[in-house]
């Protein structure tokens, strides 16, 4: 284990974390503003990857595909809101969990039907192929750096939107004190639709961006969804800032844990059990971290809601 390896894995962790943030941001906003728990959010990420891949293949350009995937995922989000979510706002969390679970089953199967169950491969765009030399003897893929940059830029835009616009003020008001929205005379129906669409688009964007570095397959949204849940629970439900920090933390813990722990375990165990124990503890590490954080702070690191 060298310093180079550590640096590469840390960058991978941050890059994974920023993707997680793009998914978690929508989830935490939807929950914070509307008090809706949306299991189907991971599906938006999967749709982003599939739509991006198909649109890229159809247009012959990765960039055009990525660009078109945004309105496409937005449309999917709006459609889902109109068909399903709209009817869940005044229902309890149990009903929301189950209805969105039904949406997952449906869309995972629909994707299998349309695209088959074999993973799709998406090529890295020519412009971003190859690597950059970070230090002598250390190459890092340019595309991964681009994801990191694009993700950070999106996070910045989101921050501007939430902290410095009127719409953002409403979102924050809604997340900390929901009855206030109605009292302010806000058209909550439209606000919810917009927040939902925005969240869907962010997750879709993350999926479309990630398509070249992972295998695009049915169910790919499920594992991301669960990590995004961990992120928003650790970050404090409803808090975008908390989601950002927690996403980076979870990304780092997940990637570093899985890659480094098997090596670390060899310091104390024989190689074969070390690999096993390392791999299993590595994949559990984020959940252990979550349990520890919640044992100390049941409402997460940055709780948004007062009282």
């Amino acid at each position, binding site marked *: 284990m060298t310093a180079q390896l550590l640096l590469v894995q840390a960058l991978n962790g941050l890059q994974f974390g920023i993707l997680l943030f793009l998914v978690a941001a929508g989830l935490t906003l939807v929950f914070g503003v509307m008090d809706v728990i949306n299991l189907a959010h991971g599906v938006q990420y999967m749709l982003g990857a599939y739509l991006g891949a198909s649109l890229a293949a159809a247009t012959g350009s990765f960039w055009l595909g990525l660009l078109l995937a945004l309105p496409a995922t937005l449309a999917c989000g709006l459609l889902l809101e109109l068909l399903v979510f709209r009817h869940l706002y005044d229902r309890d969390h149990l009903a929301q969990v189950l209805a969105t679970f*039904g949406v997952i089953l449906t869309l995972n199967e629909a994707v299998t039907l349309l695209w088959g169950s074999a993973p799709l491969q998406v090529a890295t765009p020519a412009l971003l192929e190859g690597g950059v030399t970070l230090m002598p003897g250390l190459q890092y893929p340019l595309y991964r750096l681009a994801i990191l940059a694009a993700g950070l830029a999106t996070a910045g835009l989101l921050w501007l939107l939430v902290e410095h616009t009127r719409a953002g003020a409403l979102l924050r008001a809604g997340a900390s004190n929901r009855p206030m929205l109605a009292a302010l005379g806000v058209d909550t129906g439209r606000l919810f639709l917009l927040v939902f669409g925005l969240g869907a688009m962010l997750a879709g964007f993350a999926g479309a961006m990630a398509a070249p570095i992972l295998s695009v397959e049915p169910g790919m949204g499920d594992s991301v969804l*669960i990590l995004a849940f*961990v992120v928003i629970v650790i970050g404090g439900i409803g808090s975008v800032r908390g989601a950002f920090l927690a996403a980076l933390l979870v990304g780092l813990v997940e990637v570093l844990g899985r890659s480094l722990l098997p090596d670390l375990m060899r310091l104390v165990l024989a190689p074969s059990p070390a690999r096993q124990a390392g791999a299993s503890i590595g994949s559990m590490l984020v959940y252990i971290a979550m349990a520890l954080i919640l044992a100390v702070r*049941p409402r997460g690191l940055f709780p948004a809601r007062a009282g």
Partner: protein
Amino acid sequence: MPASRRAATLPLLLFALLAAAPFLGLGEGWMMTLLARGMILGLAALSLWLVVGGAGLVSLGHAAMLGIGAYAVVALDEARITEALVVAPAAIGAAALFALLTGAVALRTAGVPFIMITLAFGQMAFFTAASLAFYGGDDGYTLYARSTLAGGRWLENRLGFHYLCLALLAGAFLFCHLLLASRFGRVLRAARENPLRVQAVGFSPYPYRLLAYGIAGGMAGLAGFLLANATEFVAPSFLAWQRSGELLFMVILGGLGSPFGAVLGALALLLLEEGLGHLTPHWRLLLGPLLVLAVLFLRGGLVGLPAQLAGTRRHG
């Protein structure tokens, strides 16, 4: 009391039907397998009902308890211990212990954080199972043999296994009823309705909820023991979060208001899946929307359906 007698009629009818099933032309191999599976999942759904319907806590990690029960069978099978009188208590104990440990953390929260934490703990168990290379890792583990009962190979007999499942299901059902009506259950139900009021009369809900969660874990572990024996095969997919979602749906489909709903929901969902599976390999494409519709329109579950229908007719 006629009301409670009426409430007991349907469960009695269902259990009598299940008891008579092998002699009502349902004795074929695949049908018996399906029924056994239904009763086992009914037991698992019943244990989840204790948490969701009894204590009012929505758990999305219940498949982990079922899976841990099943993996306890695997661990003992690997060590060539197959006596059910040892294996079943071990499965119950392992799952209950996991429930108590994770519940101790998860119950510090409520509402949506509780849903997410139970989900996360479920994933933790799932990844652990998938990394157990000596039990087959992702590929799962095939048992050498079904458990023996008091040394005899009763569980290999199809009828014997059927009645074992039925007896355990009926026993667990009765137990749930008694538990919820007891002093303990009264505190649990009250804490579900209004935790503040319960504290104001001197109860801290936490220990009651934790114990209920542990008991539910143990019941699910028993279901895991049966499931491992029914399939003679155990895989990490037993612990997948989609399984937890299915269990939760069984509870709701049947109706959250009574433990009978959980049993009914488990059987109904299983039959529905089986039926849709005959229609198309993409049966989930049909099940998903049905699930959404059931949540949106079937408010009281199947148990509440007659009342709901009567209600709409009166209004319509």
